[in-house]
């Protein structure tokens, strides 16, 4: 277990290093930089000003040199200064991790809490009216663009009914627990709807497949009740592919969070990374994307641990030895 964990950590560090270089290079290869774009909106800015500002921000140096300098500082814990926020990049990201974590965590928990029982129920009653209804709802959830759903919710619940706030993370000057919860509801529900359809479909398919296995038939032949068969035998096996799907969905949840965060003016990581990339805010974009990657890698690692828990046949120590 220890060796396996150490190997995974080493692999993750290599991935993060390669990613940091790729991201830095890709942002650098984008045509124009913030100073070029600044000229378009400031009639007083001269080309001499632009050259001077590029030098101040280090944009006049070759890409490799800039990356080398960044890496050298990053290794020492200095992740640089965010140009978009006029604050140290680490401070900016620190203030956003919590809000995105809350949004993603709650929506993931809610999505799984709905998807697993509904998927199992649909699999146990295949091609019934309920199954068709579940499928229809799933496809609707998958097909509806999150931005449209968000707008619809704002109009319905904030404008028409006036039950919930239209956006933001808290009422300025309030910020109490109830107020924060009210601000969370619409973004969490939007993000949940965007992912629950997929999860339910996977759960249903996985359960259906498991129920066709010989060991289920054997369990039934032994006289076990359907409830016992499902909870004691089928569910654990059916959850295995779900673990992979959930682990891999971290990245996708981030992209969903970008749209949700933009629509609900929720100040989280997704929006911050997007703005940082567009604004050539290298330091912030890098640390943001590396954090997202680290999260996905951690998700995968946890999924591997989850396999062991769910399936006794899987052993991490064997995998660690390359078995």
């Amino acid at each position, binding site marked *: 277990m220890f060796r396996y964990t150490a190997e995974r950590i080493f692999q993750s560090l290599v991935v993060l290093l390669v990613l940091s270089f790729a991201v830095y290079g890709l942002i650098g290869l984008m045509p124009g930089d913030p100073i070029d774009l600044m000229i378009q909106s400031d009639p007083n800015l001269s080309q001499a000003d632009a050259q001077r500002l590029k030098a101040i921000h280090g944009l006049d140096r070759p890409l490799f040199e800039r990356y080398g300098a960044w890496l050298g500082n990053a290794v020492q814990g200095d992740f640089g200064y965010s140009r978009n926020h006029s604050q140290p990049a680490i401070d900016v990201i620190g203030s956003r991790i919590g809000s995105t974590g809350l949004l993603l965590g709650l929506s993931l928990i809610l999505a799984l809490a709905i998807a697993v029982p509904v998927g199992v129920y649909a699999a146990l009653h295949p091609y019934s009216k309920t199954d068709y209804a579940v499928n229809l709802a799933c496809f609707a959830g998958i097909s509806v663009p999150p931005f449209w759903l968000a707008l*619809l919710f704002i109009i319905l619940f*904030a404008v028409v009914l006036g039950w919930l706030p239209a956006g933001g993370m808290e009422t300025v000057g309030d910020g109490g627990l109830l107020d924060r919860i009210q601000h969370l509801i619409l973004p969490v529900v939007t993000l949940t709807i965007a992912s629950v359809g997929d999860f339910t479909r996977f759960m249903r398919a996985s359960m259906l497949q498991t129920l066709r296995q010989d060991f289920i038939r054997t369990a039934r032949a032994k006289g076990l009740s359907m409830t016992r068969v499902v909870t004691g035998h089928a569910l654990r096996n059916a959850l295995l592919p779900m673990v992979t799907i959930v682990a891999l969905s971290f990245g996708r949840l981030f992209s969903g969070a970008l749209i949700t965060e933009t629509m609900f003016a929720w100040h989280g990581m997704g929006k911050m990374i997007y703005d940082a990339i567009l604004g050539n805010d290298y330091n912030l974009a890098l640390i943001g994307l590396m954090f997202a990657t680290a999260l996905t890698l951690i998700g995968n690692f946890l999924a591997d641990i989850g396999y062991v828990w769910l399936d006794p046949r899987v052993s991490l120590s064997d995998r660690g030895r390359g078995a």
Partner: protein
Amino acid sequence: MLRIANGLTIAALLFLGAPAAAKDTLVIGISQFPRNFNPNIESMLAKSYILAMARRPFVVYDADWKLRCMLCTELPDLKKGTAKIETTADGKKGLAVTYTIRPDATWGDGVPVTTKDVLFTWKVGRDKRSGFSNIEPYERVTSIDVHDDKKFTVHVSKFTCDYRTRYSLGVLPAHIEAKSFADPAQYRIKSAYETDTTNPGLWYGPYRVTEVASGSHVVLEQNPTWWGKKPAFKKVIVKAIEKTSALSANLLAGDIDYIAGELGLTVDEALAFAPRAKRKFDTVYKSGLIYEHIDLNLDNPILKDRRVRRALLYAIDREAISQQLFQGHQPVAHGQTNPLDTVYDPNAPKYPYDLKKARTLLIEAGWTDIRGGIRHNAKGERLQLDLMTTAGNKSRELIQQVLQSQWRQAGIDIRIRNEPARVFFGETVSRRKFRHMAMYAWISAPEGVPRSTLHSTMIPGPDNGWSGQNYPGLANKAMDKALDDAETVCEDKPNRAIWSDLQRIYAEELPALPLYFRANPFILPKWLKGVKPTGHQFSTSLWIEDWRVAK
């Protein structure tokens, strides 16, 4: 789907409550959040808008496009002797401009605004490491004579007619910022405007910044040391909501009171929103100095011919475009000088829609043979032009299609090639890589001499390190002279004559096809009065003390 959303929005209006009662707090919605708060580091509309409530420049253009003092007591004037032409040490024509700071002007912590602050600001501004975006005015200042705590004279190395606004420095509080400037290279990071934004001593407007939630909102509260008219609202909250659809939904939900025109909805969005919200909101459209146009690449053999350029303009019905797409709220531009500008000449040549004239000019230019509806010249070359703009800009893409169809009537084949704004501005336009036509907008200032966009020394190229913004490549001696003179001949009559020349040459040469002046829609609740859209770079929020709740 959007129609359903629109339908729901209409339904929403039926449920809206009564107009707001007496309000202490005004919540303004804008679509951008400032990247920083130092007034001199980077020019950004969102920042200007917010800071206008908490700081006041020396000199501004008001809503009637007239110059007026805000921090000073009197406008410097050559006639009154508060501005004097002088000879510089190297024998050039320089200038001395005298300002007097208002005697009652104090920072939010009670420290008076004095000449010490002016000297400190100059010191920071002329240091190339400070990160100020535009340091030219600071570099032009050769010395500052301090007469007393409030009166000072700025000596500058170059005489230009815009002296009253050019040296209106964005004054910084020396008693706070001197410490941040200990290491000039670190100033942009360590400035108290970034590290201690809510320090009252940084502000001297009717409001001061009391809370900043990065990316979300800024709270401003009344400044007890403000010397002017007391504002009506105790607190102003400026909320940044980037998606304009969410911005308008927030307005309907009552989470914000007002959408600022400077940074809010586009005209097409406002046109869709206004009829549905007219019970509670007034929409005021104010066109201004954002000049939408099509740059023509004058190096191109087809566009080198002035007759072709004129034919292109005659062949498009800009009035109909303005009426059909923008209900006339974005007025047709006949040149780059806005009719609201005092230097505008209404007699400059104009090109009303005249398809017959366009065809005649094209025939004269040798495009006589029409095959498949498209003109060809004697060499058999097809009259085909590329029209580029920023991909994803709905208004421009719509206009492009209308123009394509109108030019087709004259036998001109238009190929639309759009690029993301980043590529378009960062590479295609700035490196003059567009083959024929590039559609975008310029932002100017009242009485601003368009040297960087029209002077022949401003044509970007490898020889000058791609500096300058004369992207069409106009090289015209008469235009160069007019631009030089417009900067230095300041007496009213000759100055107006030069500006008339400048506008005439522009219209005759047509380095760009003028389209229209973009309008900003202000979505105002019916109870909010006193907001006067300006149409230029000075925000409405500079006069926030005049805003009030209707009785």
